[in-house]
């Protein structure tokens, strides 16, 4: 099984790294930068895992539910 987990800061959470990157983009001439949010993408290849177990891993280990949301995509 191949899966990709995308972890993003929750919308209400200030992402100072995203703000700093956004300012750098403006500095490079990109106009009208409204929002930059930085998260993580985690690629997983695993034999014999079920989706429920992967969701548990996403919730308990790969993301911090206090400040982050995750999205699990099963590719194959």
């Amino acid at each position: 099984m191949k899966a990709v987990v995308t972890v993003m800061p929750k919308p209400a959470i200030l992402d100072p790294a995203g703000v700093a990157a956004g300012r750098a983009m403006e500095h490079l001439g990109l106009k009208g930068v409204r929002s930059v949010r930085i998260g993580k993408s985690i690629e997983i290849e695993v034999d014999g895992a079920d989706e429920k177990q992967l969701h548990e891993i996403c919730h308990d280990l790969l993301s911090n539910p206090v400040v982050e949301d995750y999205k699990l995509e099963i590719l194959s």
Partner: protein
Amino acid sequence: MATISKAPTAIKVAVIQFPGSNCDTDCQAALASFPGVTAEIVWHKETSLAGYDAIVLPGGFSYGDYLRCGSIARFSPIMGAVRNAASTGVLVLGICNGFQILCEAGLLPGTLMRNRDLLFRCETLHLRVENNESPFTSVLHQGQVLEIPIAHGEGSYFADAETLKALNENNQVLVRYCDASGNVSAAANPNGSLENIAGICSHGRNVFGLMPHPERVCEPILGGTDGRGIFKSMIEWMATHKSNN
């Protein structure tokens, strides 16, 4: 007749060592400087903490801070024993990375996020004791200002509004960042922590996490002794607790 002086109650403290811990021996030395206290380093692969009166999760960069600070250490084999001990009222102190691990483990509410200004802040600053009704602050005074160093890049305390309200209502915020006169102000906030929170305890008051490093200011030669009050509070609490049993 000769006066019989009471020997200090023997106290045994475990300092957990994770791969990447780097304040473990400092914590051990700080604790062992108190009469009657033995502090032992316990490797994170151990699974029992029987016989210890308190547990310290020291600072450092467990597992290289990979994924999130403390997120992998929280699954170390020893954490089952830490959780059990905490549930039976044993004192658990988490300093810096130890605080992050306790939050990741759900033993303390909220989380520690990247510092607001993205800088790793390494400096001595001031903390105001918000509440001395805890096993970690009992020898200190409410409103007392302590000078204790911080050294972290992810120390910005965050919790949702409901959790924050509960923390305040239950007097779980034990220390806040302040200026030299004890004013809790935005200027005195080094990392963007909500309400200048530097350290919180659990609802049961036996688990305490803080970002500053009390173990680094426990001897005059190190520039200060303001950290001793936290360890002294713990030791007095344990001694009383043991003699009552």
